[in-house]
């Protein structure tokens, strides 16, 4: 008797899993809206794309493209049109779409360019490695690009990896302050590679692979933090030999660096 009940339970759950595979990887319980980032957004974009509402990149970033697609979905399914993926919207989405979680995550991890439209074999929707160079995994203020972040993270890691976190944010902030100043070039790349501007460029340390801490420091600077209070230069007083840099008005010292105008 016990055995037959046990077998029945296994059969019921097994049948459910086969009949409704998209339920296996349903959303988390959190409400998802514009500005969000992560696995829930990946699932949302994939499901919306499965139904043809979303035509952008599946990257886990809830931007305007995802927002309009979600609103269109809500309108079509007579839900509250607010561009927010709450419980009802998610439930409706899960019931009318499929989501191949493992496949989608594999494509993202491998840097493949891919789509997730319904009715098209998955194998036909991916191009190996084609999207890797454009992969985005952070949300930046609109005036900055992923390339800016990468380049600045390299500069910060090369210049200040031994410094406290504040000192790393400060180096990133100096680069951004130069971008605002009329005395410096107009792009982050030109500022970093201006001859003689950064020691890490001269000694090749800029080409070391930056760690997550350096990237986070750059992200904070891009989001407005400036521990230097508007500095344009910095130097290590133990090693600086230029009389000119000592003549600059100083603001504060962070770690081994003095920051100045």
């Amino acid at each position, binding site marked *: 008797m016990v055995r037959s009940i046990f077998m029945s339970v296994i059969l019921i759950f097994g049948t459910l899993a086969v009949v409704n595979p998209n339920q296996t990887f349903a959303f988390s319980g959190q409400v998802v809206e514009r500005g969000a980032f992560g696995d829930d957004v990946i699932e949302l974009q994939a499901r919306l794309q499965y139904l043809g509402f979303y035509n952008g990149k599946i990257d886990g970033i809830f931007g305007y493209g995802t927002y309009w697609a979600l609103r269109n979905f809500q309108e079509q399914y007579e839900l509250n049109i607010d561009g927010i993926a709450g419980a009802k919207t998610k439930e409706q989405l899960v019931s009318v779409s499929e989501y191949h979680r493992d496949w989608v995550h594999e494509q993202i991890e491998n840097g493949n360019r891919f789509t997730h439209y319904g009715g098209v074999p998955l194998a036909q929707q991916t191009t190996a490695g084609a999207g890797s160079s454009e992969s985005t995994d952070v949300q930046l203020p609109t005036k900055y690009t992923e390339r800016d972040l990468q380049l600045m993270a390299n500069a910060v890691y090369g210049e200040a990896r031994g410094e406290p976190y504040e000192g790393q944010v400060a180096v990133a902030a100096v680069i951004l302050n130069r971008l605002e100043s009329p005395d410096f070039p107009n792009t982050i790349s030109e500022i970093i590679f201006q001859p003689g501007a950064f020691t890490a460029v001269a000694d090749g340390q800029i080409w070391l692979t930056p760690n997550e801490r350096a990237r986070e420091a750059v992200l904070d600077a891009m*989001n407005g933090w*400036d521990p230097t209070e508007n500095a344009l230069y910095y130097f290590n007083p133990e090693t600086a030999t230029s009389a000119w840099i000592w003549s600059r008005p100083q603001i504060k010292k962070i770690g081994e660096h003095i920051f100045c105008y």
Partner: protein
Amino acid sequence: MKSAIYLLSIAVLALGLYSFEVRQQNTQLEQTVQAQYTNALTNASEKLSTLQRSVSQSLLFQDQQALEAELDNIWRISNEFRSTISSLPLSRDVANEWLRYVGNIGEEAKYASDNRDFEGWHDRMQVVNQNLQSLSDEWTVATSNFYQNDADISQWTNVAEKDTEQSPFKNVASNLKSYSETDFPLTASESDWLKKRDLQNLDDKEITKEQAIEKLEILIPGIKDATYTVTKSKEDAPYPFYHIQFVKGSRIGYADITVKGGHILSFLSERPIQEQKGVSQQQVRDLTNDFLKRAGYNDVQIVEMRENHQAWHIALARVVGEDKALVYPDGIQLKISKDSGELLGLNAMEYVQREEINEDQKVVPINWETFFRPGTHVEEEKLIYTENEAFQLRKCYEVIARFDSKQNETFRIVVDTENHDVLKVEYMP
């Protein structure tokens, strides 16, 4: 013995060959760099001559069309010259002075073209034209040695390392400095902007180090009883502030608080963040509002939330007037951890430097249906204050518009409410 000598000879020979190879590679590299510098120098010299000719030619025309074409040229060439000059290994002050001076010419050209201020352009450029000519002559003299047959890379390294006083660019640098001051004195709006940056209007009562820590602990109770190191800003800093560094458990961070009034300028704390997401977006919003109340920031509103791997970055702007316009330059930024909702950062530098609002600016309605092409939907419209290129704070319409297409491409457009100048167009991903 013979074998040892034989082996030693082979080793010496191999070493000799290796060092010859390395030396050859170095020479090749030096020659490549030298060629690039010479190319950049030639480009810069040509651009400088073209710029000077173009400024001179602009003084010929009264005809609007002819003058506008020349002004566009000047703006373009000045940008190209700036880009080229920044790729040369000049000493910092020479490079900075060039970038500033030529940048000013370009900005003036753009301003004259945008505002049809042709008379003003002619007045200002009479002198600039002569000074540019003399700078061009001095530049030719200063750079002539770099084209000699025996030129080598050490000439460039000397320029980068030596003080300007000892470099061939000494005269260029000193003239650039003086021309910058006389030809482009600070405008009223620039000077206002600098004043704000320097917090010169802050005249509150001074607080002590202990009071600064107390203030910090009220705002950020999570760091109460941390170990603090407090230093004061350097003598040259334009406004005095306390630089408070703290350690509490795994948290390490800093806060800058003004000596006058104890205004918190920025705060940032670093600690290991758990991968598990512990707070929802709504909770982050609630935590933000709780903090704003506690800190007394009663006149700000969330304008953007961005989630990343470790934390949420939240942008807020001050709200003013009956029409609840957002003053973007008076912003506050917060950083809230994803694992527990702890406040990891606060940046209120701009909020402390409050802008003065001109409430009298006219708001002339715009018909968006004729402003945009068919197929463009205006989804949101609000009033904001933002700076134009002349650093003047202007009341503007901020519009979120999208193309009615499969991709739903979305844009943020900022339009002056009075003269309908388009100040910004940004693609919203």
